[in-house]
């Protein structure tokens, strides 16, 4: 494996940073080189959040280039679309269906875009998309569910161990 690039996108508070950190920790436990990129501070207050996880010997920076993501984990449909430039036709997109309307929509009395429209736009980048029911299931975030099947170099055993570890070590 030369390089594995993941992009995680969602809204501040959904656990994007935590999921990226769990994946990064799993990679370190597998003895791999990894970079996890994130933005804190101002960006946290309900704003759009994006994290990257890059795994590979020759990985130096946390930046994923356009069209170079192997895997996009979208926690929220609009935010998945906002980061779709990282996808190519080979990218696997896993998207949760919990819609969080941006305040701008509410203020302008506009509806959240139709899921059909969002999917159509996403498919202009990758047709390889799996929709996961996350609405009303906060306790089961999509992280890890499909990871090994799609060649993510962290096995379920470590993810399970990490889950226990993180429950012990993290407050969120």
């Amino acid at each position: 494996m030369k390089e594995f690039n993941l992009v995680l996108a969602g809204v501040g508070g959904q656990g994007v940073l935590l999921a990226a950190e769990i994946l990064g920790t799993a990679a370190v436990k597998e003895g791999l080189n990894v970079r996890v990129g994130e933005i804190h501070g101002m960006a946290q207050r309900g704003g759009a959040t994006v994290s990257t996880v890059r795994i590979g010997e020759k990985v130096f920076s946390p930046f994923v280039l356009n069209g170079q993501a192997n895997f996009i984990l979208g926690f929220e449909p609009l935010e998945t679309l906002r980061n779709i430039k990282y996808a190519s036709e080979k990218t696997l997109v896993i998207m949760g269906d919990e819609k969080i309307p941006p305040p701008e929509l509410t203020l302008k009395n506009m509806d959240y875009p139709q899921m059909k429209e969002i999917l159509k736009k996403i498919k202009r980048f990758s047709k390889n998309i799996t929709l996961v029911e996350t609405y009303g299931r906060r306790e089961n975030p999509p992280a890890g569910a499909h990871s090994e099947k799609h060649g993510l170099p962290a096995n379920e055993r470590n993810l399970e161990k990490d889950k226990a570890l993180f429950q012990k070590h993290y407050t969120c």
Partner: protein
Amino acid sequence: MPNPHVLLQDEHGKRVLLLGNEAIARGILEAGIGVVTTYPGTPASEIGDSISAIASEAGVYMEYSVNEIVAVEVAAGAANCGVRGLTAMKHVGLNVAADALMTLAYVGVRGGYVVVTADDPECYSSQNEQDNRFYALLSNLPCLEPSNPQEAKDMTISAVEISEKLELPVMLRTTTRVSHTRGPVVYGKITKPRLKGSFIKDVERLVMVPANSRPKHDVLLRAVEKAKEISEKSPYNKIISKGKNKEYGLISSSSAYNYAVEAAELLGLTVDILKLGMTHPLPEKLIGQFLKEHKKVVVVEELEPYLEMQVKTIAKDYAPTTEVYGKMRQPHFPRSGELSTRAVLIGLADITGRKLPINFQEIDARYVEVVTGLPSRPPVLCAGCPHRASFYVMRKVAGEKAVYSTDIGCYTLGIEPPLNIGDIMICMGASIGMAQGISKTTETNTIAVIGDSTFFHSGIPRLVNAVYNNHRIVVAVLDNLTTAMTGHQPHPGTGVTGMQTVSERIAIEKVAEGCGVKWVRTVNPFNIKEAEETLKEALRYPRTSLIIFRAPCALMVVRERRRKGLGVATYRINEKCTNCMVCIKMLGCPAITLEKGKVNIHENLCTGCGLCASVCPYKAIEPNATD
């Protein structure tokens, strides 16, 4: 946040995923640093926070100082007694601390002392993107620049050692991308910190009156020469990947180095890269030799052409025929904003005439088509934030015409519609300062909006100025009992210290009275009627008045209730709702949304502050029944 106790594990050789800032905290423990001071600020905050959580166990003294210059003074005082120290701050914090640091460079230190400056290219959480490497040039202090978490830890230790060797403070300069990137870090041994020092009286060395300062300037310049020798031999300044192609060579540092390596690889450029980790003073001979060996040298760096300016000066003496590319004469790379692999790819392709491996134009065009009209999602005040109530009161009472001079903190988000509070903002504390000039030169009501932590940081001298010079302003201290934006650090109004011990709270009311303010009131902003009446009265007062809008940060309230096993009493819309939208148009609370055109309260987001219920003209918002 991660459990900081991971940082205390004394397992030499253990490999752990750490954030750049956590790696610096680990470096503090391995270097045996005894005194750590900080004022929180993104992207530096996690350095102090990680140490604060483990300070008593680690035997380190840690404090959240009232501001950055005090933080430098406290640690520099300790370092002058032979105890190792470190102060962490964001880039603009160094502006506050600069007065101390510039002359501390003359006085020097006995125990190793490191000043961490975390710069913020792209202004992710800052008011500017100044390049603090120039502080190293200005002060003559040595500067190290890590490019990843491992280096961040290692360079913290090296910085202490260099500082002790030269008896000078040393700068450790990170950027957001270094401070907030996680990567594997291999642990070294923890060194038990020494906290006890001794003060050796030496007026000529330590008291900077002119007669002593003049010779100390020369002492400093001699130390820079010694630092140059260290830089020439430093393992952080090295040539990586000996390429066959001697036509081109790259010089880079910090995050830019990561982008340069990846971009060169993507372009198939097998070239030498001179990686600079000690960027002040620069290794002149090493750079000179590198310039001699290559016909064309490309300097890849973020923000200002700090390296390029100096590399060009060195080239004049060592290799006048070598071409130096960067951003000065011809801008091959951007001088503003965060650098990226993409920007470096484009610049390098342009210089070397190679073809880009990715069709950015095609992807961009397709991307623009799918995201045009996509609603933006800027950060907003949280659901239940007491600032929203304060701003609602200000808008209602003082209205559109009043000038709102605002400050640095969560409340800066008040500029977003529909609250629209915040007409001018530059730096910590300036809300009160600028309000005075605005009030003096206009007939307008002027309200200075400042947070509790910012008030202690730098509001107090401005308040004294306002009172003494009879400026007619209203100072609105939005006191949410914490330093919220940076992660809930304590300040003198909270009653907690960086060592997580209890201290007597300093009351903002008493401070204001002590500064001479004759009209001081405290209100709970959720008590809308009382808050409105109080603000009206303040606006009628002919001199400086001060209102403290006090209610705890909503995030703290929710956390506290969860910890106690108490649920959050959320609100709901009842049948009286006429869909008049007053709640939405006046408050802009993220928990109030429209579902198929009908006002709805998002149960997962509502924190039960009840502000919407207070403003609803039809009593159509009521609490949900609690269990």
